[in-house]
Every structure is written in structure tokens, then in C-alpha cells.
């Protein structure tokens, strides 16, 4: 699974990344996490409201920091649809 965190490096993005890692550990999933911090890159995914979460090149969340439990749902749904 390939995960990208979109955001210019504000506190929200770091929280999102930390919670994503927690959710992955909880699910026992293996993923490569990278950060997209440049604005054209972020906009390239159509995201205007940061932070954004991209799983396998699909935007799954934008504009808010979900709870770890919500991320577990989102990520397991993404994993199931692969």
C-alpha cells in the first residue's frame, strides 16, 4: 500500500501522519508513507483543504484530521478494495 500525506508541514499534517501510522499498526498493514509538501503536488491531487490523505493515488480524505479509529476504517476499506 502506498500512502501519501498532503500538506505543507503544519501541525495537522504531522498529527495525520502519526495517526495513520497507528492505524496501520493496528491493522497489521504494511505501507510506504511519504509526504507531499509542495503546493503544485498537493493541488495535483485536487486537494485544496489540507491535510489530505492519499492511498494508492486515490484521495480518501481531505480538510480534517480524523481519529485513529476513523483512519482504521478508511484504510481497511482501501485495503479491501485493492
Amino acid at each position, binding site marked *: 500500500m502506498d500512502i501519501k500525506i498532503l500538506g505543507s508541514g503544519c501541525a495537522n499534517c504531522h498529527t495525520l501522519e502519526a495517526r495513520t501510522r497507528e492505524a496501520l499498526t493496528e491493522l497489521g498493514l504494511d505501507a510506504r508513507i511519504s509526504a507531499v509538501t509542495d503546493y503544485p503536488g498537493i493541488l495535483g491531487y*485536487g486537494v485544496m483543504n489540507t491535510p489530505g490523505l492519499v492511498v494508492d493515488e486515490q484521495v480518501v480524505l481531505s480538510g480534517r484530521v480524523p481519529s485513529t479509529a476513523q483512519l482504521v476504517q478508511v484504510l481497511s476499506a482501501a485495503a479491501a478494495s485493492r
Partner: protein
Amino acid sequence: MSALEASPGRRGSRRVTVVAAVAGAWLLAYLGNTPLWDLLVYRVAGLDADSRLGSGVHFFLADTVKIVLLLAGIIFVVTVARSFLSLERTRALLGGRREGVANVAAAGLGIATPFCSCSAVPAFIGFVAAGVPLGVTLSFLIASPLINEVAVVLLYGMFGFKIAALYVGSGLVIATVAGYVLGRICPPHWVEPFVYATTLRGVPVAPGQRLSWDDRIALGREEVGKILRKTWPYLLAGIGLGAVIHGWVPADFFARWAGAGNPFAPLVAVLLGVPLYSNAAGVLPLVEALHAKGVAMGTVLAFMMSVVALSLPELILLRRVLKPQLLATFTGVVATAILITGYLFNAIL
């Protein structure tokens, strides 16, 4: 959904009951706040209502609770209401409209769209690259922090409905006019060229935005917690300073140099307010105390607007997409509009 969960209808009615109960408790706490502190500070603790200490302590305690209640209630309602709109939808609503009309719409949508100031740059690129005119985009970006729900609520709590309505009305006019003027006088090459070169891929409406009522209520609760956690130090400092001014500064102290009679007061207020960065929650208790000691209303509102609408960190952020000429013109036009509003209010209030 597990089989153990109640049916949707059942859950809906339980949700209504819980929300109604919380709303009732809120109202009771809000109405009972001043009588409660009258009793505790003046009767139980035995402080004199006419003494500096007594009135200062009473102001601090009663105001802290009142402001926290107001903030919690309104942020919740506003967040839930805003969850029906998104930046993507706003952009779609603004696209292809004539300038002028679109500036008015952009200012209005600036209030209604859920938007964090840390997204100002991606939002700017997203709007401009999608063909929303520069001036219209700027109207949106000016209105969003200026007419901030925290500011409006606190103004209502401290000065009443008329002042809060005036603030919202003049904020809309400032955002509309300043955006329109900037759109007229700023050539496109004052925007960093990469903005126009950005290609927008991806879905127009972000997924995960289809929210249930439970999601919206959860969002509202999270937002209340987030804002209160973020603002409480400013709030306490602002209210504390306000309490000191209330109790210890003579009533006409500021009237001498910042009252309606001093033509330079709004100018000084705006010059002080532009570089200052604080949220509305931090400035307002201070603003209330200054006004109580004789600073004119227009001066106070101009100070407040310049603090929330323009700030050094925001300008540094916007420098990524705006060239220095545009950044300077932006600051100048918005500050001038706020200044005119301040003078106008001083003249009519």
C-alpha cells in the same frame, strides 16, 4: 453496521434528545452565570461590589465562563452548519460568474465555507488555477478570517446585537470592495507564475465529504475542543488584562487619548493591529475593557479587524503565491478599507 445497533429512526430520535438536553443545559448555565458569580463573589466570598478587587475578580470569573459558553455553543452550531459546504463546492459556485457579483458571493461564501487559514495557499492556487478571477479569490480570502465566527460571537456577547451585525455587514463590504479593487489594479503577473501552471487533477468534490448527522455532530464537538484548547491561554490573558483595566484604570483614562475626539486613534489602532497576530478570542476581552474605559467604538473595531484580517504570519504564507507588489497592495487596500470603516463608525456611533 452491526445488528446490535439501534435502527436509524431510533438513533435519530435519541440524537435529537441528547442535542436538546445539552442545549437546555447550556442555556441554563448561560442565563445563570452572572447571578451565580454575584452570589459567590459578593455574598459567599464577601468582596465589595464597588471595590476594585471585587469588581475585577467578578469580571474575570463571570466573563471567562460567559465567553467559554458562548464559544462552545456557537462554534458547535457553525461547524455543523458549515459541514454542508466545502471549498470545492464554493469554487464551483464562484466559477464563471461576473466580477462584482462574484465578489459579493465570494465574501459571503468566505463566512460560510469551512476553511483553515493553513489552507490559504492551496485554496488560492485551487481557485485561481481553476479560473476564478484573482479579485474574487481575494474577496474570499479576506472575508474568511475577517468575519470569523469567534469574533462575531464575542462581539455579540460583549456589545450586543447591533455592533455584531455592524461588524458582519462592514466586513462583507470590506471583503467585497477590497477584492474588487485588487482585481482591477493588479495585473496577473503579480501572481507567482507557477500558480497558473498548476494542473488540477483529481475529483472536483473530495471524497469522504458525504457525512451523516452523527459525523457532523462529531465534527462540531471536535472543533469546539480544538478551538478551546488553542485559545484558552489567550482568553485568560485577555480577560485578566481586561479585569485589571476594569478594576484599576480610571474610567476616562483612554478617552483622553483614544476617544472619539482624537482623529489619529483609528490610524494608530490599525498600524498596531496589522502586524499583531492573535485570534479573536484573545483580543476581544481586551477590546471590551478598552472600550469600557473610553476608546471609541470605531477605533476598537478597526483594531480588532486589523488583528484578525491581516497578520505577519499570514502575509509570509501568502508570499509563496503573491509577488511582493501584490502582497503590499493587498495589505494596503485591506488596511485602508478597515481604517475607513473605523472612521465611519466613530462618526456615526
